């Protein structure tokens, strides 16, 4: 049992031996964990309605990791928050679409139709789906010790007395490789360094053994060397617990390292979805391509090819393709209608008229 006091979950696709070694594994069998279909989240602000998330669909299998990339304001955080019905209240609302969660041994739950303050969603938040945030100093409470916060989460979801919960909290801190966990458990967040606080946050998120961990820019506030430590910790824990991971970031490098497949978002819409390797090998959408070209790369002093213009105003989005104002390959059909989904080479999905039109002509 490598996951502490938790029995290793036996997945349908795996048969485990006595010591936890994998005896039989069916790699092709994918167990569905979460499906999001045509999700739309809208904000009502004085200037009008902002379609922060506008028709996002994707599926996640157990143990899989998904990366969501995009610039600020593209709707990646709102997408993640709405999965747990934590989107800002009351200005935001889910205007359409469904979010369905598939628990391991009970019937699927349609999260999007649950009451935001109800029992049902509270049983999922933290217990089934947990989240870590960018700045742990603002998301941990400054007036409670690390231990108190972890114990509270454990006792909310699990039938444990204080002593057992405290032991589990210490063990969790040990698992996220915080040195001297017996002492750290009684310390306050301000006594820890930035990297340490992020580790404590991960311990808190994982204390109830969630099936899905959502990490919203988990390393953006950290130095590169600490970022490397935290990412390898998350990856290691994810593999050991066979947990699913959704990592939200603006850094393509982080996605390349962490995710099995990637959603590229632009002003509330998914513009491209592909396996990570495939995306970097063969980016299709003009936005993804431009984004990759605009990054400085070590060893190359060629002039950067920047994307002209800036992200359009969210309440005055252009008609047709949202990227058309900055796109080099724009033509007539981009102006009027939003591009339809188009599958290129198997499961590589792109929303761009160029590929759609090319497919039409080649039959």
């Amino acid at each position, binding site marked *: 049992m490598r996951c502490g006091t938790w029995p290793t979950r036996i997945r349908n696709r795996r048969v485990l031996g006595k010591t936890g070694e994998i005896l039989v594994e069916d790699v092709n069998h994918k167990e569905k964990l979460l499906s999001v279909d045509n999700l739309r989240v809208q904000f009502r602000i004085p200037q009008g309605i902002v379609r922060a998330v506008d028709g996002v669909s994707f599926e996640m299998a157990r143990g899989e990791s998904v990366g969501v990339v995009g*610039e*600020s304001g593209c709707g990646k955080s709102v997408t993640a928050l709405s999965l747990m019905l934590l989107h800002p209240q009351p200005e935001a609302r889910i205007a359409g679409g469904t979010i369905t969660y598939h628990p391991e041994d009970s019937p699927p739950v349609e999260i999007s139709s649950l009451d935001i303050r109800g029992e049902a969603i509270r049983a999922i938040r933290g217990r089934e789906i947990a989240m870590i945030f960018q700045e742990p100093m603002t998301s941990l409470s400054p007036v409670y010790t690390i231990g108190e916060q972890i114990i509270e989460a454990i006792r909310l979801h699990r039938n444990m007395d204080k002593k057992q919960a405290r032991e589990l909290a210490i063990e969790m801190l040990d698992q996220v490789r915080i040195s001297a966990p017996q002492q750290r458990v009684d310390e306050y967040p301000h006594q820890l*360094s930035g*990297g*340490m606080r992020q580790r404590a946050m991960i311990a808190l998120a994982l204390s109830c053994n969630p099936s899905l961990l959502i990490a919203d820019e988990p390393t953006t506030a950290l*130095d*590169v*060397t*600490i*970022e*490397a*430590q935290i*990412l*390898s910790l998350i*990856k290691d824990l994810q593999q050991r617990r066979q947990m699913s991971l959704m990592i939200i970031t*603006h*850094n*393509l*490098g*982080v*996605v*390349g*390292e962490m995710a099995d497949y990637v959603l590229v978002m632009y002003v509330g819409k998914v513009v491209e979805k592909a396996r*990570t*390797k495939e995306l*970097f090998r063969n980016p299709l959408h003009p936005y993804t391509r*431009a*984004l990759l070209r*605009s*990054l*400085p*790369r*070590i*060893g*190359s*002093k060629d*002039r*950067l*090819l*920047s*994307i*002209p213009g*800036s*992200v359009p105003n969210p309440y005055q989005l252009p008609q047709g393709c949202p990227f058309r104002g900055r796109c080099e390959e724009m033509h007539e059909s981009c102006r009027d209608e939003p591009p339809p989904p188009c599958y290129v080479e198997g499961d590589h999905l792109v929303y761009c008229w160029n590929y759609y039109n090319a497919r039409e002509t080649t039959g």
Partner: protein
Amino acid sequence: MSERIGAPTDSDILVVRGLKKYFPIQKGIFRKVAGYTKAVDGVGFSLRKGETVGLVGESGSGKTTIGRCIVRLYQPTEGTIEFHSEGRTIDLVNLQRREMQGVRRRIQMLFQDPFSSLNPRMNVGEIVREPLVIHGLGSKDEQLDRAQQLLELVGLSRDHVTKFPHQFSGGQRQRIGIARALSLNPELVVCDEPVSALDVSIQAQVLNLLADLQKEMNLSYLFIAHDLSVVEYISDRVIVIYLGRIMEIASSDVIYKRPRHPYTEALLASIPKFEAGSSRRVVLEGNIPDPADPPSGCVFHTRCRYVQERCRREVPELRPVQEVPDSFVACHRQAELSLSGYHRGV
């Protein structure tokens, strides 16, 4: 130590020697000084005309403090900063306030956060014009005309002068900051993390703009950043700093191919490589130590994987690397170690 950096030449615009900045740690109700945070502890380097020198390090390494000492937002504790301009040598550390005003025209600063570094109550014209007003240059109409020229130079439009900062995006605000910094025709610009608050697609625009302006106006940049790929792209030479001390100086082409300090190697290894889709190795454990109580000997020895007994006792000097011009390394084992550089994934 700093003498080893080489004698100043005619082409140098800035020569820093033995720069130290200690911040007192005060305790108790009488604010008794209980110790010092050694933010910068004996740093020496030079900057040539028209050159860009990148200053990289983790947060808490003292890179911003160095920048602020150069523009004299901080008074250095020790050391000299020489500024060479129009055939004169000016000692920036011991300059009186009034004399400093004259020098400030030639050294300007560009800040990280384009949201907090522009006054929200001033319109863009007033912001860009303000340095001219302070230095009493030109009439109001001339100043306004100059502001409009500058806005065009940085890729904004002339009629933006009447708008306010909140009407602009992050990238555009950084352009306003650049226009303001250039309004006095400076020779040296200290850029403190100018692109790290910007979105990826905007970063490239601002980096290209900075590179173009450098050519056009023969500017020298001290470019402070934590992102190695950005620094490598824009800089001619790179200074790697750790806990207030220089670990390595080298030209940017050399430093990523063949780092000579274990810390540089570790920094390069921690860059996420999206081409690979594979994991990077974690070579650095732990955190940057407390600058109030730096480790003995080599400050990096607590996290170095090549550490030896000698590193714990003796402070390594910053020495020139044989047969590599412009390269300096502070490591006892420099000659024997063969460190790996940055490899692109497949």
